[in-house]
């Protein structure tokens, strides 16, 4: 193996951002486990969650190793609170249309599919680029994750088209989910301090440079689905800065309560 460029280590914040994205969406999608609209989709969501949580584990392990002082992947997943999470706000939203009260409100599969589509379309590009990260551990994780997220994108894109180009009801729900979620994607393109730093030390990438290709990929599928690409203007969410929607706290409470009640437990 030849390495032309000297190596670097991605910052803990950057690794946590990538890990938290995967964990929070993995946990969200796992809510469908046992409740999927049909058996095959129940299994698909469980599989996708498994991949995402697996990716999160690899990233948390890398971050924990760097933090030292006995930090473990479990500590990072179960013992940090809302302001310490660096995931995109998009990924913590419940599977419901806007203005639904809680995560337990009627779940809407169109919201699930549209979110998975918008995120996996992004991550196919992000992981592809991070294969060239100067952090060789991160590059290795990217190479694995890319293979998995391609299947996630294929699944979400297929369903987006089936829903959009389906019945009046499914089309209306898919369009409404797109209108609801599209503005949250603005957070992808505005770099945080840790993303800036990752770009300049060669461990990360320039997110803004992906925007045109991402939009082309999204518009291509949306057109095929007979849907309209909505505007993504408006308030820019701040999840990756640790300022989240009200929904993340409930998600973490459910995910973390067992580990916090039995902090020394062995599985």
């Amino acid at each position, binding site marked *: 193996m030849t390495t032309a460029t000297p190596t670097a280590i991605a910052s803990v914040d950057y690794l946590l951002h990538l890990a938290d994205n995967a964990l929070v969406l993995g946990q969200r999608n796992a809510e469908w486990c046992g409740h999927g609209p049909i058996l*095959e989709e129940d*299994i698909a969501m469980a599989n996708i969650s*498994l991949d995402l949580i*697996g*990716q999160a584990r690899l990233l948390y392990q890398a971050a924990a190793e760097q933090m030292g002082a006995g930090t473990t992947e479990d500590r990072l997943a179960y013992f940090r609170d809302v302001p310490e999470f660096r995931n995109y706000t998009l990924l913590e939203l419940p599977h419901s249309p806007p203005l639904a009260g809680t995560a337990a409100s009627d779940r809407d599969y169109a919201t699930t599919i549209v979110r998975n589509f918008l995120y996996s379309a992004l991550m196919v590009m992000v992981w592809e680029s991070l294969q060239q990260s100067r952090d060789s551990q991160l590059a*290795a994780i990217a190479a694995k994750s890319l293979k998995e997220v391609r299947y996630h994108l294929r699944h979400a894109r297929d369903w987006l088209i089936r829903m959009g180009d389906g019945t009046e009801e499914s089309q209306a729900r898919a369009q409404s989910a797109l209108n609801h979620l599209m503005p949250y994607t603005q957070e992808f393109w505005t770099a945080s301090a840790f993303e800036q730093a990752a770009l300049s030390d060669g461990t990360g990438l320039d997110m803004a440079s*992906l925007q045109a290709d991402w939009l082309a990929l999204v518009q*291509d599928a949306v057109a095929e689905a007979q849907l309209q690409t909505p505007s993504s203007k408006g308030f820019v969410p701040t999840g990756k800065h640790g300022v989240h929607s009200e929904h993340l706290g409930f998600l973490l409470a459910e995910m973390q309560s067992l580990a916090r009640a039995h902090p020394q437990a062995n599985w």
Partner: protein
Amino acid sequence: MTGTRTPEIPAELQAVWQALEVLADPEIPVVSLRELGILRGIRQTDTGLEVVITPTYSGCPAMGQIEDDVRALLQQQGWDAKVVTQLSPAWTTDWMTPAAKDKLRAYGIAPPQACADHADKHGGSSRVLRFAARVAATEAIPCPRCGSSLTTETSHFGSTACKALYKCLDCQEPFDYFKPY
């Protein structure tokens, strides 16, 4: 040589390598870890013997079991060895041996097509992915039971992370397809 299908094993470590041959995948007990490409090598380091394994899917729950199995077997045979997990180069179904593919087929699982022949192949190089229309869909996956190419995908995701669900339109049997990774 870690990028190749068969790792090169130094002569003095062949005995350990042979002993590991009995270990099978916990989910697919007909193929060995070596045949699946999970066992990547053995090396003698300053601190002792190391057996290198590589994970399949990031979240595959069998990996913990596989690591335990390797460790237990080494211990039982009296070898003082560490099990090291190595991510790079990323595992690929292309490392699966032809013998393993035959065993999968006999077990009722359609073996993976080569990644290079896979429908999503251009996803690896170009940024914008384009997919075939739904109807034109995917490549033909022969039925492991009757060999017919008249099969259809019923679900992208199956009973484990590595498989998709298919149905044969000739013999009507549902079957698992080991996805190219």
